[in-house]
């Protein structure tokens, strides 16, 4: 899965579905290209999600019942919009909580001076 053409793509790989779900939680309904542009804008170009990474992730989330889709005709073509289902909204809360724990633990590991070892 080629998520990013920048130097640290492996670090983002496991977070793609969480990123997608977070964006959909904030914006309600989005389509694929819109998601890639929002991520690029928010990270100021640092994170660039490719089609090969994004669309399989969206389809997997849809297959798992976490996203529902609407197809509309826009500007001479069909466009597929994604939205979180009720299960998707609950799962988003869980995944964001897990990600926050991960970030906190990584910060603790990377900055041992801020979190000194307990005296045994």
């Amino acid at each position: 899965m080629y998520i990013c053409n920048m130097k640290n793509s492996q670090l983002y790989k496991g977070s793609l579905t969480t990123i997608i779900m977070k964006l959909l939680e904030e914006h309600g309904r989005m389509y694929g290209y819109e998601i890639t542009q929002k991520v690029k804008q928010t990270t100021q170009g640092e994170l660039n999600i490719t089609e090969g990474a994004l669309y399989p992730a969206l389809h997997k989330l849809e297959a798992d019942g976490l996203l529902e889709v609407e197809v509309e005709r826009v500007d001479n073509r069909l466009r597929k919009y994604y939205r979180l289902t009720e299960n998707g909204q609950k799962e988003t809360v869980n995944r964001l909580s897990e990600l926050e724990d991960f970030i906190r633990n990584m910060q603790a590991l990377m900055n041992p001076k801020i979190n000194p070892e307990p005296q045994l």
Partner: protein
Amino acid sequence: MKLTGEQIRFIDTYLKNSGIVYEDIRFEMTDHVAKALEAMDGEFYENFRGYMVANKASILEADKRFKNIALRRALRSLADNMLKPMPLLSAIAVGITAYAFAAAVGNDRAGVVLDAVYLSLLFLFAVLYMWRYFADKFKYSVADRLCGAVIGGLYWASFIFRPYHFGGSAIVFALFAVLFLYTAVMAAVTFRQLISIYRLKLN
């Protein structure tokens, strides 16, 4: 600048010729490429060429991964249909009928009849699928993967599980009859449902 209908069709045809044959996957890729090109200044065909040089591999990778996800969804749809109460009751009725038939005429003769019915259904299914494949311009990923998996799986299963494997037991014969016939019929039902859903959403 908004793309024209002809330019959208150009993108769609290019993706189809590149191997993205499923309608439900291709329209989304077409929209993505079109949106990216609309954000660019300059001449359409130059921008398109540059975009494909940079992104075609990724688009084809997405298509490949779609097909795997589509197969899993197809098998899940089939399993959901097979586990519904009314079809299950029908399967039990088929099993009882097959058992009574095998007990009356013997497993060998019953096996020949089962082969004939089963292979006829499979042949009919394959013919209808091929007709759709060539006559109908729309191919949908989940429906297509279901057909491929079921036709291929049952075809090979029919070679592996032959009547002489039943060892003289009418119950075993009935179980095999239910397995093959029920799977084939429910696959056809699921296929029709999927096609209807796709046509409703996309056409």
